[in-house]
């Protein structure tokens, strides 16, 4: 193993990872800012979407049953 190979090896497998770790890691920071309130909003939106979706399905089900009945009473 000559000197150049050793330097390249060190650069890629020892120094580069350490240097990269020192950098601030880019993540979904908006979700962590302002006391993580966006997380609460996201949770509420999921719950609300679930409930509303359920209500729409229930609505459709009732419409289907209504159509099964004779259209005019008597």
């Amino acid at each position, binding site marked *: 193993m000559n000197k150049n190979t050793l330097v390249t090896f060190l650069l890629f497998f020892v120094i580069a990872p350490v240097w990269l770790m020192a950098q601030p890691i880019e993540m979904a920071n908006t979700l962590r800012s302002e006391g993580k309130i966006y997380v609460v909003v996201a949770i*509420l939106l999921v719950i609300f979407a679930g409930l*509303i979706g359920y209500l729409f399905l229930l609505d459709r089900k009732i419409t289907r049953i*209504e159509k099964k009945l004779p259209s005019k009473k008597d």
Partner: protein
Amino acid sequence: MKTWLKVLATLLLLYTIVAGFLFDVPRLNIVNETIRALYFHVPMWFGMVVLFLVSTVYSIQYLRNPSIEKDIYAVEFANTGLLLGLLGIVTGMIWANYTWGSPWHGDPKQNGAAISLLVYLAYFVLRGSVENEDQRARLSAVYNIFAFSAMIPLIFVIPRMTSSMHPGSGGNPGFNMYDLDSKMRMVFYPAVAGWILLGVWIASLRIRVRLIDEKIQNLENE
């Protein structure tokens, strides 16, 4: 209920959840961030009053010109209104615990709201205790008008005449005096409209189920 109204309710409430938590609110002592509960707690009561009012109108119509459909409309609007009222009183208790110091303060607004809900619960007790359908519909229509007339002074008049800690009562300015600034109105009014529409939607589903039930019974009797 028209589909576009259901979509509108969904959009208004989506906006309420996002804007209600993220928009700026006045920085007030004691209430702090709980001021945001205004967008969720108060519309429950607005929704309840609107649904009870619709229920009362159907009861009056029933007495003028009896039909089983009007009775179904009246009872299901009252039923959904009661649900919103119960949610309103429970959310109010949570809010009171952290701003007034205890969940039940014996505050005139709280007591009035609780009595109103009991008056409406009695409406369902009355319905359950009459066997004859026409008699049940007529008696409960009369009682429903009484219940609405009792609710208005209990919730809106008496708390303003005595000392109450609830905003908008007993010389206590409501949020709309100076706290509810224009930024809060931008969220509060859409929130009220959205929650009312959601209440009407749920009531309409209950009514449709009852009408289907009614039709099936008619078919069986033929």
